[in-house]
């Protein structure tokens, strides 16, 4: 029976129309709806399913970020995770936190908690890095199974179906391992209200990054964040011939 560590990141909700802040250091987050990174929801769902199938004994949800990150841990607990760990990183340090820091923290926790599996989302919808799972596997020197479409337990370990450009790829891996969830792995349940109530009573531990011996000092600086260029206004052409010649001019056909 294995213990699963899942990463849950608090991100600006997918439905929010993001705006660059006046200082041009990032997007406006104040007063903006946040929720759990959708790929992390899939990771939690997979871990909880494995627990329900008795393939895992415990699911631990980890979030790294400011105090509000506890909200997404609570959501994970309401979905069925057993306990939570909040690694508090805030302010400028959090603004500049990179996958390398996150993966070191996760690796440290995986060892401390004696996890057999780490399941993460394939990417976070805010910075779209798609690096954390891979780096975590590297730090731990564990095998990795990324972009999971299907995860099956076998005697030897896991059989994983991965989403790749050309289609699906099946690999086998031993545990412990680090996995990342792709969109079609499952349909995450939503937390019901009674479970949200119950989650309030589940244990949630708070630690600092330095307690784990991970240095989160920023190594980068943000020079400027800009809105994407506004689309140029179109022009109305009188007929199809004019359209075709315009397209040719622009080298479009």
């Amino acid at each position, binding site marked *: 029976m294995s213990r699963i560590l899942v990463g849950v990141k608090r991100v600006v909700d997918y439905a929010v129309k993001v705006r660059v802040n006046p200082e041009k250091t990032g997007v406006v987050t104040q*007063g903006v709806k946040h*929720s759990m990174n959708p790929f992390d929801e899939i990771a939690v769902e997979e871990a909880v399913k494995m627990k329900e199938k008795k393939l895992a004994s415990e699911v631990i949800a980890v979030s790294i970020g400011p105090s509000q990150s506890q*909200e997404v841990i*609570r*959501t994970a607990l*309401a979905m069925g995770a057993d306990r939570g760990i909040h690694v508090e990183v805030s302010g400028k340090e959090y603004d500049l936190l990179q996958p390398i820091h996150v993966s070191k923290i996760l690796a440290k926790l995986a060892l401390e908690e004696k996890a057999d599996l780490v399941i993460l989302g394939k990417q976070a919808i805010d910075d779209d890095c798609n690096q954390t799972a891979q780096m975590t596997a590297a730090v731990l020197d564990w095998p990795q199974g990324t972009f999971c479409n299907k995860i099956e337990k076998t005697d030897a370990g896991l059989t994983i179906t991965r989403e790749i450009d050309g289609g699906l790829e099946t690999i086998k891996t031993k545990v412990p391992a680090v996995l990342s969830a792709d969109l079609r792995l499952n349909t995450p349940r*939503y*937390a*019901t*209200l*009674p479970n*949200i*109530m119950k989650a*309030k009573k589940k244990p949630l531990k708070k630690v600092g990054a330095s307690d784990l011996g991970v240095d989160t000092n920023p190594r980068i600086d943000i020079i400027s964040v800009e809105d994407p260029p506004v689309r140029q206004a179109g022009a109305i052409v009188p007929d199809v011939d004019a359209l075709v010649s315009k397209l040719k001019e622009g080298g479009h056909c």
Partner: protein
Amino acid sequence: MFKVIEKVAPSNKTKYLLRLYATAAPKTSSNPKREVKKPQENASFMANIFRGSLASTQVFPYPDVLTEEEKELTASLIDPFERFFREVNNAARNDENSQIDEETLNQLWELGAFSIQVPNDFGGLGLNNTQYGRLCQIVGANDLGLGITIGAHQSIGFKGILLYGTPEQKAKYLPQVSTEKVYAAFALTEPSAGSDAGSIKCRAVKSADGKHYILNGSKIWISNGGIADIMTVFAQTEMTDPNTGEKKDKVTAFIVERGFGGVTNGAPEKKMGIKASNTAEVYFEDVKIPIENVLGQEGEGFKVAMNILNNGRFGMGATLSGTMKHCIAKAVEHCNNRTQFGKKLKDYKGIQEKIAQMSLIQYATESMAFQISQNMDAGSQDYHLEAAISKIFASEAAWYVCDESIQILGGMGFMRETGLERVMRDLRIFRIFEGTNDILRLFVALTGIQYAGSHLKELQRAFKNPAANLGLIFKEASRRAASSVGIGGTDLSPFVAPQLTATAKDAAECIDMFGQTVESLLVKYGKNIINEQNVLNRLADAAIDIYSMVVTLSRSTRAVNEKLETAEHELELTKAWCYQANERCRTNLKHATSGGHVNFYKDLSKVAETVLENGGVKTTNIVG
């Protein structure tokens, strides 16, 4: 002048009529003798303006009863609730099928939506009225038919057990209705007893050994009537007056299980709207109810029924404020995109006026609902007038807003796939059930007048023995003096943000005029005021406008004090709303007393009598 007041003290006849009108609980004691001695103190802002006095505690400052932890919890519930409606429920399909499918209902049970206010120990979510109201908004924005399914269950179906249940009744029934997928219903209405709920004919007779009641009769239009296994049922029972030995029928409330036997129901009614909700007749034939299933005291059933309805009324305001938000969003989306005559609809002043009016009335509705819910959560017992007003206001506001949304969408609004025609159909019932708006208007006016009357009565007694009551007399005398010279009077300015001083002055003048109008009506009509429905309706409308002004003044002041990002907008909403409410209120008060209108009401009665007698319109066709 106090001679007149003698006529005002509610006679038994008046009280009886009042009770009939009141599909809402009369707050005053049922013992007229005691009442004349000491008018009940009442913290209700609305009740007090009827006697020209300001009781500000329930309106200013705008209440804020949730703890930080409760606010956080509420916020965490919103997402899963919205998600259910986005991902699982399909309002159009429920409407089309005239039912909610099994799988959706199962998920709704799992979501916890059927037992939002049941204490945790019994398997519910244990939320308070304000938190419930917040979730109701989400329901209202998405599916009113489903809203009635869960509302008839918990807001009225088993609410009586929460309010009046014995520990044994709670332990037995609350877990069932919270987690065991057992539906509840509230069965009051009968074919011959709708608004006049006191005249029900269902009868329960106590067995010789006193261990059972045997219930017979039938109920009509019971929400969840076809699916409920537990019902709160009201029936006449024979009671003996312990003093006189006189036998009298009085209503008693019962918890009836379908499993008792003898409970059957009719086919689901085919309806204009809220089709997703089951409505059915329910029949009781020699149903054997154990004595321990009496809910509340024997003979106190009418009070039980009215308090259940009162207790749930704010929920309708909260729900419909959500519905309005949805309608406004639809209209806004359309007029931001649609171009006619070379411009976006949003750029036309006519369209802008519509959007603004819809927003104003939504703001007022929401402000009422959450002021009432929070007063209730703070332990107030004096919210009945306000709750009745919020029900009237919300149901009419939502109708107006949905209608205007459809208008803004033009032909698109009329199309089924837009989804607004369903909302319009669903909304119609809200002005009819849980007390028709007409009856509630009479209730508001008459309850307030009765309260004012009992206070004037007290004043009259004070004059009989001035030595003992000089304080009261002086207080009253100075109040009158102040208002007659136009100074002093009511002053709301200390309660509102400085930007609202002028608006608050208008509202305060309305309050003063209102008190004076009530007094002059009492002088003019005495207890016969009960028959002057035209006048009572104007008075009720004036009361509604006053309440709407005060709640918006209060809420926007809160926004300013808390430096909310929306404060500026809320001030604009309040000023624009109050500008109109103030004018309407003055007009209604004038129409309640002016000689011209007295004649106009007579003319209306004459027209109506002619048409009624004729069996329809009575004019000569222009072309034969």
